């Protein structure tokens, strides 16, 4: 038969036991939850990555349509064809064209990481050592041609100078380069 003291003792024991169970249950719960969250973060990052990866498909297509592969350029003539001044109604002295520089294009934010492009610069060397010279029948044709060629993602032009005092409309395209993917 339980005495009054025993009764109190049993109740206290029950409360303590219950409290401990609660406390450790809660702790265990917290451990599980934190493990679950860590796991979910991994899942989240995997999902994010695969979404990014899929989103990059468009970028890849864009990239491949904007930039020709390096393999297409075996010699300067091939390079010339790649630019195709004629397509834009521009005349250029093919015989005097020469390479003036070759470099790897680096990433904007990480300057030591290659972007995957080779930049090939050229000039109409004998006439002017810093520019490619293009001409057209009239100024309108000249400017339209320059506009189109300058809008190509693989073409870089630092500056354009229009000469108004020559017999035919002429423009000097300074720092003219073409980029091919490698």
């Amino acid at each position, binding site marked *: 038969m339980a005495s009054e003291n025993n009764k109190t003792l*049993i109740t206290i024991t029950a409360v303590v036991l219950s409290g401990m169970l609660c406390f450790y249950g809660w702790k265990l*719960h917290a451990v599980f939850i934190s493990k679950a969250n860590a796991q979910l973060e991994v899942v989240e990052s995997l999902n994010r990555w695969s979404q990014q990866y899929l989103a990059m498909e468009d970028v890849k297509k864009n990239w491949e349509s904007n930039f020709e592969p390096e393999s297409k350029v075996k010699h300067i003539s091939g390079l010339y064809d790649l630019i195709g001044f004629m397509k834009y109604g521009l005349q250029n002295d093919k015989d005097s064209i020469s390479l003036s520089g070759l470099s790897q294009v680096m990433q904007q934010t990480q300057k030591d990481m290659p972007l995957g492009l080779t930049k090939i610069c050229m000039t109409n060397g004998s006439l002017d050592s810093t520019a490619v010279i293009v001409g057209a029948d009239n100024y309108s044709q000249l400017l339209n041609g320059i506009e189109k060629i300058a809008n190509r993602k693989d073409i870089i032009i630092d500056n354009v100078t229009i000469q108004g005092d020559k017999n035919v409309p002429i423009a000097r395209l300074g720092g003219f380069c073409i980029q091919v993917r490698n």
Partner: protein
Amino acid sequence: MDYQCLSASEDIEAFSEKKALVGGNLVFFSINREQTPPQGYVEQQSLNIQRTFTSRLRKKTDKLHVWLHPTLLTLKGKCKIALTIEVYLKWGLKREGLHALIGGVEDKSKNFLVDVLIFNKNKLVAIYDRELPGRESKRFESAAQSVCEEITRSYPGIDINISSPLSDWGQNNCDYIDGAPLTNLPFKNLITLNSQKKDFIVPGLISFAGVCLFGGFTWHGWQAYSDALHQYEITKQNPVILQQGGVDSYYINVMTQRRLMMEEVRKQDKFSSDIRQVLDGIRGIQDVHVVEVRVPGKALADQHSGSSEKQTEPDVSLSISTPKKNQSSVDQLKEIITNISSNSRYTIRSANPAWKDENDQRIFFLEGDLNGK
């Protein structure tokens, strides 16, 4: 003696002691409930009738069930009690062999009950009570004798002991052991078995709640964790990830850089329209001819500080020619700038050097910011 014996319900009301040894018809007992007490008797904790350790642990061993007279419970809280039957049983179980114990609370004038307990090999084998006339009655002697003879008849060769609070009956075949079983009487508070059960309800519920919460927390946590693991397993099967053989952050970085590079708005995209804008501004101004237009304009070295640091380049630099006039070059320049400004949407200013004469032509050097107006 700091306690009093209590054996009749009519004595209870007047009872005022703190401790009582209770026997007689206030206590009803039965092995394994073979008999049930009169209405109203209150059940107590049952007693072991075998003196082995394991019997205490085993639930299904034989028990001596005990009930108390309801009136006795009016003493609850006022008085602690010990039961004669309990102490006799305890004493009897300790003794080896076959023996009997007669005990009870005597009354001088009234009939009273004696308890007879038969033990064999540390086990209670029989228990019953017999009513005797008052101790001072003439019939007592023979009645007592018949109680003893009844025992010897049933159990030949048995040792019979008579214990306090009975007095020595002086029977030949009985030993009087006085108060030997009554040392260290286990006085306890009066409780009913029901209330005793209730005592455990609250702590039981508290413990149960604790166990439930523990289980609930653990279960919930485990569910969350295994769900997350499951999701991870599913995600790992993503064809893109399988195809790439894992997460390749380098690829994403490079492609992001390429995207940014291709999305970048370049100055060269506007070169032609810039030139057109400049030419439109000059067209129609009399006697003015364009010699050269350059986008972006040439930046001049800062002449004042002499540093090699370039000034920001203007959007455009241009040179125009116009026939020399009978007019200072500064005035002529002012006029031309005013004309161009009114004709166009860009700001124009003289460059450095501002002009030069070439034969009959005067050439002005200008620079300007497009859309700057």
